[in-house]
């Protein structure tokens, strides 16, 4: 059994489990699923700076912070005790495309060419960590949610604004990958 769990999980298994998070949160405490809101609660709790957007009773939304601490803990447990003993597999076409951009490490879930601690104070770090992170935080709040709040929770509740947001996420991702990223990789 444990050997089976250690294998990479099929998309259908992950999809069902993520989908079930929606009714689980609703039924155990009338909570609407959404992860990026946690970033807003962190701002409201730590540096509200008299900004109206952060002046609310974040303690009522403490559940959301417990949830994301759980996600962090889950990441730790899965990586420490349930990690895949086999080689990490990336689609061969993706490998070919990314090699052309200069990626050399395909051995782990995140390429060390980019996502290593040594890169934090480099141009790569500025683009992939700082600017990328800023866009994730700013964009999700501007859009009123992320993949969880819009694409999963919103679409589950048949919300048209969530469909519009989800399409925008995808268009943004395609545009970055195909139109902008080739230029970014030329910088290194």
């Amino acid at each position, binding site marked *: 059994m444990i050997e089976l769990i250690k294998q990479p999980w099929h*998309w259908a298994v992950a999809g069902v489990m993520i989908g079930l998070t929606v009714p689980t949160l609703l039924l155990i405490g009338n*909570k609407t699923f*959404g992860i990026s809101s946690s970033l807003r609660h962190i701002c409201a709790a730590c540096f509200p700076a008299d900004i109206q957007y952060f002046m609310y009773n974040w303690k009522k939304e403490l559940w959301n912070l*417990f949830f994301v601490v759980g*996600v962090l803990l889950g990441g730790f*447990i899965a990586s420490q005790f349930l990690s895949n003993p086999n080689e990490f597999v990336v689609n061969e076409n993706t490998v070919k495309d990314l090699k052309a951009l200069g990626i050399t490490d395909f051995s782990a879930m995140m390429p060390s060419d980019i996502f290593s601690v040594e890169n934090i104070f480099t141009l790569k770090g500025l683009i992939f960590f700082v600017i990328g992170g800023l866009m994730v*935080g700013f964009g999700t709040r501007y859009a*009123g949610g992320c993949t969880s709040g819009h694409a*999963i929770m919103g679409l589950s509740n048949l919300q048209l604004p969530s469909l*519009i947001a989800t399409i925008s996420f995808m268009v943004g991702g395609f545009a970055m990958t195909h139109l902008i990223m080739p230029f970014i990789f030329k910088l290194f």
Partner: protein
Amino acid sequence: MIKTNIDKTAVEEFVCEAPNNQVKKESLASNFKYLIVGTIFGIVFVKAEIISWFRIQEMFRLQSFHMYGVIGTAVVVGLISVQLIKRFNIKTLAGETVSIPNKTFDKGQIYGGLIFGFGWAITGACPGPLFAQIGSGFLAITVTFASAVAGTWLYGAFKNKLPH
């Protein structure tokens, strides 16, 4: 003078996008059940390799069905669950009626959505996987996370100047 005072103290109506709609008060300890749900969620993220930058690249290059399968299945399961809850008026553990706020359209869903999409492709992470990546020991992602908090703060600071 008086007018500015009123403006300053006027509290914007709080619209949380992932709200707590439970009327009954909860103890601090009762929050641990969300920690457990989050932990399972984080394990799924790692085991299905959703936290991988490569899986996100495969998705945006249309070279793998994996992420489409994950998100598509999650939506179908979520949709069926929500419809069942509504149809049969299934109550929460505290005996309350489930309430899910409707989303209202504004242009932020397009502009913000595109900006998030750019960031998603670069970092290989939406907010959920950020936490799971850090938990998995990718320490550089703490910088991405801090930047995402800063981005959220910047949105709050400039919200009124942005087109919505």
